[in-house]
């Protein structure tokens, strides 16, 4: 199981109160985690990545194991600790705005 930490606005939208545990088929990557997340919570489609190009929205980042994975290939394997469920996969909204 992979543990995903959502920004608070997306928790509200998905109607979850805590972090999300996801079963990901095959090798875990950013793409496969987001695919599984959007399959379970269809209301999140378009809020994290573009629905057509699948590009990450500009004001969001992906962090795990103290690394910024945002600019890595979406098909790169996630760190072992994330795959093992020991470390969360963070979806972070930019700290900005009024």
């Amino acid at each position, binding site marked *: 199981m992979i543990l995903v930490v959502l*920004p608070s*606005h997306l928790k509200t*939208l998905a109607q979850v109160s805590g972090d999300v545990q996801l079963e990901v088929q095959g090798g875990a990557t950013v793409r496969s985690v987001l695919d599984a997340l959007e399959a379970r919570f269809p209301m999140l*489609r378009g*809020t*994290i990545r573009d*629905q*057509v190009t699948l590009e990450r929205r500009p004001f969001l980042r992906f962090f795990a194991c103290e690394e910024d994975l945002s600019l890595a290939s979406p098909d790169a394997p996630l760190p072992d600790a994330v795959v093992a469920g020991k470390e969360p996969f963070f979806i972070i*909204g*930019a700290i900005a705005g009024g």
Partner: protein
Amino acid sequence: MSGVRVLVGTRKGAFVLTADGKRERWDVSGPHFAGWELYHVKGSPADPNRVYASQSSGWFGQLIQRSNDGGKSWEPVGNKFVYDGIPGTHMWYDDTPHPWEFKRVWHLEPSLTDPDTVYAGVEDAALFRSTDGAQTWEELSGLRKHGTGSSWQPGAGGMCLHTIILDPSHAERMYIAISAAGAFRTDDGGKTWKPINQGLRSQYIPDPDAEVGHCVHHMAMHRSRPEVLFMQKHWDVMRSDNAGDLWREVSGNLPTDFGFAIDVHAHEPETIYVVPIKSDSEHFPPDGKLRVFRSKTGGNEWEALTKGLPQQDCYVNVLRDAMAVDTLDSCGVYFGTTGGQVYASADAGENWAPIVRDLPAVLSVEVQTLP
């Protein structure tokens, strides 16, 4: 007893304000979608319990919310807005070509007859339609592709399609307006479009009476006379008596002919309302006095309506979709400000009182008259 439901979109959520027909005591519900921008919230004329809301965020993009119980509960529906084909380019501020990019939904216009049909005006300017209750969206691309699209340029607020008017007497006729392209009309349900900007003069474009390029801020129509249109342009209040084929200025004695909002009395098609705003860069009421101006002659002759509105030290703005009227016997008029006030008049503008004073900046106000 009949009543009203006022749907308010703000910079930080939506609010639903309800009252009985006296419109004196109000119940305030919200914020719905707290922290998100709600550019527009509007109910279906065919089913007042069906309400659509445009919810957006610079972080998380565009969502559409739908309610089937008059705004008590909501469900997210379709938010996939994809331009038809390869969208190409429009003009950027510096006159260079710029790719068409979807940013947000400015305006939702539910069908007059079918609760599941709703139109969306978006930035970058295009018109979308859903016929399944906003689950899926299809662009009516005849507008963007009609011929002048590649020359459209954004206004300061973005290149937005912000006004959609459905003709109650002619199901295939629709009017839209874009900043800063102008007004357009279709007579065949959105397949083909024509610019309807003849008579507009805009000194801020190289050719002041060009076919397109005018910064139309808003338009309004009375359902009993759908061929008569009123327009608040960047500067000038305009009127057309032939479905937009020709416009004439009716700014008359207004203290400034700049503004955003314009609306028509529910029962008097020659009575119109505007809120003059000082421009070019201030965008607040002249002399710090918040005044609605009413013309009972379809323009040119205007009177200031001030009772209950602040007449000193007021520096708010009233945005283009932030004025509406109800259809009770004594027509109610409503508007919201960027200072977070929503003002109501239950007597066609003679007397005003705030329903709420301290909301986030108000982006839109719509009213439903309930049986």
